[in-house]
């Protein structure tokens, strides 16, 4: 056994230990602990990714002295390590970019707890990526739920608290439904680990026994995770939660946490339930319909929003619709598109939130569209980042947002009514994206007379924009040259869907 195989476990336990240690450290020390943790975790996950991809292998890791059906297990392959790497890196960039806002938004006596929560969120996300056990998944969903609500509520203030209560309610409904699904699944299969569950479920489905319970359990787990990911009819918490949080939290919530739940759902669909059973249970079509609805309705809501960050958050809800639409299509080509969409959104959305906050700062804290006119001239790096992000979200070729749209469209052909639903939603959503993102980007570069503006010191603008620039450069690189990543995803899919 190679030493690299220990790394998934190291990332989880290291972040737990860092969280405990940060609990008693000072606010600055705990911040650097978080930064160090996320950097180390990125490197470790990269090592796992390289190991899995070079040896074209996946492996399981026994947590303790007892093998699979009795003890807990971690599993790592190309997809798992790729997602873990993405999450760690995007979190690192979000907190680096948002650190100055954290200092402004979070009261001094609880600032060290903010970093504790960042560590705990990271631990939970790593566990969600690497777990091979459905109950471990549930436990770390709980950690993630509480920690992310705290990350939001730490800012304080009435509207933020309302947003976090809403978020908490929806998130807890989601966890509750998921737990019920897990309980039903356990009582008709008697297993909790993914490989054993998959065998048992395939057998039960062939027999036809417990058909109703199985369908309901699959539905409950999917709906529970969809609520937590903010799929369309359950997205009401999302704009206020993502839009009101402090910048680093906005980046973390929209960039990674939503995708952590989504990735667990993908694992459940492909490694627990099996895509054939999932298709036969009918839940697939439900996801497709709601995904398509999310793309249209949330984009329309973004056009009607009055605040920059609310608009960006509504756009997240629409982008989540793309991901669920891909899961609803159910083919391997669509799954590749879903992963492209996850990567594209995770790299772009935190960048947009960082840019929006900087633009707000340059307009004296205002984020209505009249105040933002010409903000790009005052804060050039932030305006540049927002423009790049907007072009990417619209799906202009060469930017990363174009790649998943291309894959979705080409995966949609030959599927009957679904083809029309997917293509129609893609067209409408893209047109609406043009309307709100490009329009805002143009608004930022209007010439204005700046005499009456509140003063803004733009000297540190480039330094603040550096993490966002890193995300933008990575996004542009993938947008210009997506073939290596597509190859990696093909390799991952071959390992993942065995």
């Amino acid at each position: 056994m190679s030493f690299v195989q220990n790394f998934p476990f190291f990332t989880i336990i290291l972040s737990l230990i860092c969280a405990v240690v940060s609990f008693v450290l000072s606010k600055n020390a705990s911040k650097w602990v978080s930064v160090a943790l996320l950097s180390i975790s990125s490197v470790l996950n990269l090592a796992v990714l390289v190991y899995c991809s070079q040896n074209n292998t996946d492996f399981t890791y026994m947590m303790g002295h007892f093998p699979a059906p009795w003890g807990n297990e971690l599993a790592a392959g190309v997809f798992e390590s790729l997602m873990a790497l993405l999450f760690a890196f995007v979190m690192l960039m979000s907190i680096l970019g948002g650190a100055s806002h954290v200092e402004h938004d979070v009261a001094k006596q609880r600032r060290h707890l903010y970093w504790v929560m960042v560590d705990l969120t990271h631990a939970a996300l790593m566990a969600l990526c690497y777990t091979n056990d459905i109950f471990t998944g549930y436990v770390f969903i709980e950690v993630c739920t509480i920690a992310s609500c705290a990350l939001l509520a730490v800012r304080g203030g009435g509207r933020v608290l309302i947003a976090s209560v809403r978020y908490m309610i929806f998130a807890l409904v989601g966890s509750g439904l998921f737990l019920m699904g897990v309980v039903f699944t356990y009582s008709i299969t008697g297993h909790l680990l993914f490989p054993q569950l998959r065998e048992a479920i395939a057998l039960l489905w062939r027999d036809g026994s417990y058909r109703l319970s199985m369908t309901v359990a699959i539905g409950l787990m999917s709906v529970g995770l969809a609520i937590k990911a903010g799929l369309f009819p359950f997205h009401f918490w999302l704009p206020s939660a993502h839009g009101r949080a402090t910048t680093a939290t906005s980046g973390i919530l929209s960039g990674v946490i939503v995708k952590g739940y989504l990735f667990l759902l993908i694992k459940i669909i492909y490694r627990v339930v099996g895509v054939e059973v999932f298709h036969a249970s009918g839940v697939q079509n439900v996801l497709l319909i709601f995904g398509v609805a999310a793309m249209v309705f949330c984009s329309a809501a973004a056009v009607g929003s009055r605040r920059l960050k609310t608009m960006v958050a509504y756009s997240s809800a629409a982008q989540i619709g793309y991901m669920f639409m891909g899961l609803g299509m159910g083919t391997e080509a669509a799954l590749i598109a879903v992963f492209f969409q996850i990567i594209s959104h995770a790299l772009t959305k935190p960048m947009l939130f960082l840019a929006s906050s900087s633009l707000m700062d340059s307009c004296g804290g205002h984020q209505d569209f009249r105040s933002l006119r010409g903000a790009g001239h005052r804060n050039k790096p932030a305006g540049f980042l927002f423009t790049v992000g907007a072009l990417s979200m619209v799906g202009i070729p060469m930017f990363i947002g174009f790649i998943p749209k291309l894959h979705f469209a080409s995966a949609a052909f030959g599927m009957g009514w679904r083809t029309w639903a997917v293509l129609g939603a893609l067209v409408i959503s893209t047109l609406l994206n043009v309307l709100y993102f490009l329009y805002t980007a143009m608004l930022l570069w209007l010439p204005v007379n700046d005499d009456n503006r509140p003063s803004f010191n733009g000297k540190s603008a480039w330094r603040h924009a550096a993490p966002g620039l890193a995300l933008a450069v990575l996004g542009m690189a993938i947008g210009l040259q997506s073939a290596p990543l597509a190859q990696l995803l093909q390799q991952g899919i071959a390992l993942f869907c065995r």
Partner: protein
Amino acid sequence: MNTQPNHANDPSLLELWYNGGLDLTDHLYIPVEDEPQPAEKYRPKHNDAVFARHLYRYARVFNVAGTVLCILFSLLMILTVANLPAYGDPDAPTVNEVAERYVEQGTAETGAVNTVAGMILDYRAFDTLGESFVLFTAVAAVTILMERKPKKKVRRAEVISYAEDDIVRVVSRFVIPIVLVFGVYILLNGHLSPGGGFSGGAIMAAAPILYAMVWGDEQASRVFTARRIRTVVVCALGFYCAAKSYSFFTGANHLPSIISTGTPGNIFSAGLIMPLNVAVGLVVCCTMYSFYMYFRRGSI
């Protein structure tokens, strides 16, 4: 904390677009806060207060829809549960090789007479590690939400102290040590009999809470300071992480472990289970007590 400006009257993108807001000749920037706000036209749409008013207006519709939805969901759940294997059915799918090994070889493999303790702290220890961190996350989250400076001067009427009452004082002097000892017993005996960290810690927490109720919060916070509680939680969780990391690492890499299971039935047996029970118990106890104090006076 920054206050957020009220954006109720700001135009949405659609309105800007429709009204030709992209007017390139308009170079003059008008600060938003100086704009006159006509009072009679003040009709915020996306406002939480208005949202609440709408909510009340449609409360009846929501009530009916919610009731129908709940009934449908309950019916579905009842049908599903009826479709599950019967409780205690010997042919149920849950009675398989997993449960069999836990019950039959649990004592031999983990050294714990109490099968549940062996299961949660040895076979599936990673889940329990996660559970303890759920508690830790909850403590930190409550601290974030509730932490505020205690009121400097508390009015005499607000101070509730039952210590002046003879009966309460004398009885609590007897009860507190007994509760504490019983909690410790459940904690230490967790691998031998029903009990363990979660239940023992909850019982132990009753003692400091009772102390705080009888002798007053001030007195309690002089004994159980925030610093002490934090130290205990951090040490317990740190020990938990370290011990389990060792065990997971040796187990996964098939290395020999220095931890032996001992003689089942002895108090010092079952390897790491007893110390882990103590760690979990301390975390639970501190969690309970700090929840009580935070909700009572806003600080420990």
